C-alpha cells in the first residue's frame, strides 16, 4: 500500500452535531406503536374490537346507575328492567363503609381531622426536600394526637405514651456509645417499664381534658384499613431495619433472635397470626388484663410485615459493595454512624421497590381482619350491609367501591415510590 493512503492527520476536530431530524408527532407514534407490522396491525384491530365490546356492555350499567333510592327493591323499580347499577347503596351507606356502623355520627369529624392531619404529618417525611424539617416535630406528635382524636378519652394517656417514648430515647442515647444492639433493647425495656408504671398514675386522671371515648369495638369501615395500614407500615419499617441489621450482627444472641423471629414469622400464614391475636392470646394473658383487639392486630400485622421488610432490606445490604463498609470504617465512623449515614441510606434506596411491594401487600391484607369479626370495609360489606333487608344482593357496586378505594391508595403509594427513586438517583446513568 502506498504511504500516502495510510497517512492521515486531522486538521480540525469535528464539532458536536444534532441528531438527524425525523418526523415526529402523533402519526409517527401511531405507525411505530400500533401499525408497525401486519401482526401488530391485526393485534391493534382485535384490541379495539375487545375494548369496544367491554365498553359498550358496561357503559349502560354506569350511565343508568341510580344514586338516590332507599333500597335495592326501590332501585329496581326505578330502573324498570333496564341495565343499571344501584349506586344508591353508596350514597346511603357511605358513612358505614368509611367509619363502621357504631362510630358515633356526631364524632365523624374526629377521625376525619386525624385523616387530614395525617397528610400534614406525612409531608415532611415523604417529601423531605420540599417541606421544612421543623414539621418533623409535628410528625413526632402526630401518632399521639391521632390516637386521642380517634379513641378519645383523657389526654393523659397519649401524653404518658409520648413520655414513655422520650424515656426510651434518652436511655438509648446514653447506651448507644457502648453498643447499638444493647441500646435498642435497653431503650425498649425502659419505655415499657415507664408505660406500665404510668398506667397506675393515669387511671385517676381519666377526666383530664377528656374527649368522648370511643371503644375499639365501635370502629369500622375503611378507617380501620387505613389505620392498620398506616400504623403497621410505619412501625414495621424501623423494626424491619433493626431485624435486618440484627441478622448481620456479630453478637450471636442478637443474631439468632432475629433469625428465628424472621424465619418463624415468614413460615406462618398471616391469617393464623390474626386468629392467634383474636383468640389464643387471651389464654396467655393474666385473666384481668384486657388487651385491645386493634392493638393485638397491629402487633401481629407489624410482626408479619417487619419480617418480610427485614429480608428485603437484607437484600439491599448484600447488594452494597464491601468497599462502602471499609471506607466508612477507615474514616473512623463507629457502627451506628456508618449504618445511619452510609450503609442504610444506600441499602434502603436499593430496597425501595421491595419495601413498597410489602407495604402495598400489607395494606391490602388489612382486609383479612374481617375474618376475625372486625368490621373493616370488607367486614362491613359482607356483614351489616349485605345482610340488611334493604341492600341484599348489591355485590358489584359495593365491592367495586372498595376496590376503587384500595386502588387509589395503592396506586398512590406506587407512584410515590417511583418518584422517590427518581429523586434519589445520583449515579446519572
Amino acid at each position, binding site marked *: 500500500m502506498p504511504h500516502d493512503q495510510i497517512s492521515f492527520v486531522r486538521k480540525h476536530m469535528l464539532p458536536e452535531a444534532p441528531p438527524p431530524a425525523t418526523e415526529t408527532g402523533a402519526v409517527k407514534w401511531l405507525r411505530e406503536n400500533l401499525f408497525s407490522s401486519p401482526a401488530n396491525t391485526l393485534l391493534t384491530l382485535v384490541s379495539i374490537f375487545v375494548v369496544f365490546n367491554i365498553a359498550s356492555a358496561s357503559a349502560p350499567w354506569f350511565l343508568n346507575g341510580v344514586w338516590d333510592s332507599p333500597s335495592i327493591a326501590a332501585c329496581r323499580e326505578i330502573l324498570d328492567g333496564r341495565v343499571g347499577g344501584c349506586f344508591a347503596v353508596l350514597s346511603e351507606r357511605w358513612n358505614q363503609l368509611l367509619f363502621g356502623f357504631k362510630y358515633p355520627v356526631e364524632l365523624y369529624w374526629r377521625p376525619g381531622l386525624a385523616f387530614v392531619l395525617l397528610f400534614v404529618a406525612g409531608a415532611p417525611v415523604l417529601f423531605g426536600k420540599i417541606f421544612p424539617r421543623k414539621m418533623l416535630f409535628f410528625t413526632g406528635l402526630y401518632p399521639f394526637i391521632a390516637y386521642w382524636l380517634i379513641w378519645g378519652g383523657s389526654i393523659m394517656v397519649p401524653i404518658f405514651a409520648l413520655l414513655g417514648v422520650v424515656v426510651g430515647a434518652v436511655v438509648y442515647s446514653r447506651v448507644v456509645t457502648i453498643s447499638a444492639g444493647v441500646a435498642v433493647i435497653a431503650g425498649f425495656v425502659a419505655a415499657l417499664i415507664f408505660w406500665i408504671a404510668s398506667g397506675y398514675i393515669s387511671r385517676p386522671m381519666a377526666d383530664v381534658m377528656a374527649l368522648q371515648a370511643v371503644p375499639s369495638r365501635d370502629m369500622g369501615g375503611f378507617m380501620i384499613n387505613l389505620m392498620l395500614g398506616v400504623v403497621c407500615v410505619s412501625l414495621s419499617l424501623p423494626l424491619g431495619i433493626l431485624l435486618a441489621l440484627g441478622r448481620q450482627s456479630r453478637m450471636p444472641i442478637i443474631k439468632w433472635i432475629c433469625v428465628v423471629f424472621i424465619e418463624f414469622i415468614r413460615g406462618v400464614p398471616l391469617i393464623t397470626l390474626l386468629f392467634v391475636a383474636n383468640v389464643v392470646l387471651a389464654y396467655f394473658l393474666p385473666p384481668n388484663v384486657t388487651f385491645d383487639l386493634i392493638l393485638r392486630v397491629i402487633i401481629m400485622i407489624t410482626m408479619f410485615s417487619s419480617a418480610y421488610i427485614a429480608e428485603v432490606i437484607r437484600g439491599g445490604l448484600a447488594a452494597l459493595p464491601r*468497599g462502602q463498609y471499609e*471506607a466508612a470504617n477507615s474514616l473512623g*465512623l463507629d457502627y451506628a454512624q456508618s449504618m445511619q449515614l452510609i450503609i442504610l441510606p444506600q441499602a434502603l434506596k436499593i430496597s425501595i421497590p421491595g419495601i413498597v411491594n410489602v407495604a402495598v401487600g400489607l395494606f391490602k391484607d388489612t382486609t383479612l381482619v374481617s375474618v376475625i369479626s372486625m368490621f373493616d370495609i370488607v367486614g362491613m360489606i359482607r356483614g351489616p350491609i349485605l345482610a340488611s333487608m334493604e341492600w341484599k344482593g348489591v355485590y358489584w357496586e359495593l365491592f367495586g367501591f372498595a376496590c376503587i378505594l384500595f386502588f387509589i391508595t395503592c396506586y398512590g403509594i406506587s407512584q410515590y415510590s417511583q418518584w422517590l427513586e427518581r429523586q434519589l438517583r*445520583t*449515579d446519572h446513568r
Partner: protein
Amino acid sequence: MATEAQMKVSDEVAVQITKMNKWYGAFHVLRDIDLTVYRGERIVIAGPSGSGKSTLIRCINALEEHQKGSITVDGTILSNDLKNIDKVRSEVGMVFQHFNLFPHLTILENCTLAPIWVRKTPKKEAEEIAMHFLTKVKIPEQADKFPGQLSGGQQQRVAIARSLCMRPRIMLFDEPTSALDPEMISEVLDTMIQLAEEGMTMLCVTHEMGFARKVANRVIFMDQGQIVEQNDPEEFFNNPQSERTKLFLSQILGH
C-alpha cells in the same frame, strides 16, 4: 530528591509492627512481619499479587484483624477494643483501589462527613477544610457534584481529599492507580507526590515503580506473606539482592 527526603525522616516511630501474623482460615497470609515506620517516611510496598501487601496495610487500620504479634500506631496498640480501633482509624487515612466514595453524597458531603461526625467539627468549618483540600487536589469546582459524575482520576483525588480532611498523621494507599485509565494515573500520582513533599507519612501499595523511584525513601518487596527485601529505592532497583526480587523486577521493568 530521594536523598533530601531521607534527611527529613525523624526518629519518631509512627507505626511499629512486631512479629505480626495473619491467617484467612487455614491460609497463612502474613508471616512474622516486622516493620518500623518512622514519621515522615514514604514507603512503597511492591510484590506479586497475593503476596499479602494489601492485607498488610489493611491491618494497620484494622480493616483486617491480625491474629498474632502486635501493631502499634501512633502509640496506640491495636487490640479488639473498638474505642482504640476507631481512634486509630481517625488518625490514619486510607485510599482504596476502587475509590469507595459514597455515591449518595455530593463531593463536598463526602469530605465533610467524617470531620462533622467523628471530630465534631462545626459544619461551616468542616466545609472550609473540605474546600481547602479539594482546592489542593485541584477540583474545588466539582464540590456540588456526585461521585458518579466524575472521572476515575477525579474520584480518586476526591478520595485523597476526603482522607486529608480528617488531618491524618499517616496515609495508606492501597493500589490507588490500579483501576485508572492511563491518562488519569499521573494526576493522582502528582497529588501523592505533592503530599509526600509536605512530609506526610505514607505507605503505598503500588505497581508504579516510577513513583517509587521518585518519592519513596524505602521500598519493601513482599512475597508469600513475608518481607523479602527492603532497601532505599536506588539500591532496590539497581542492585536487588534476592533472586525473587530480581525476577520480579525483570518482569515488571522488562519492557
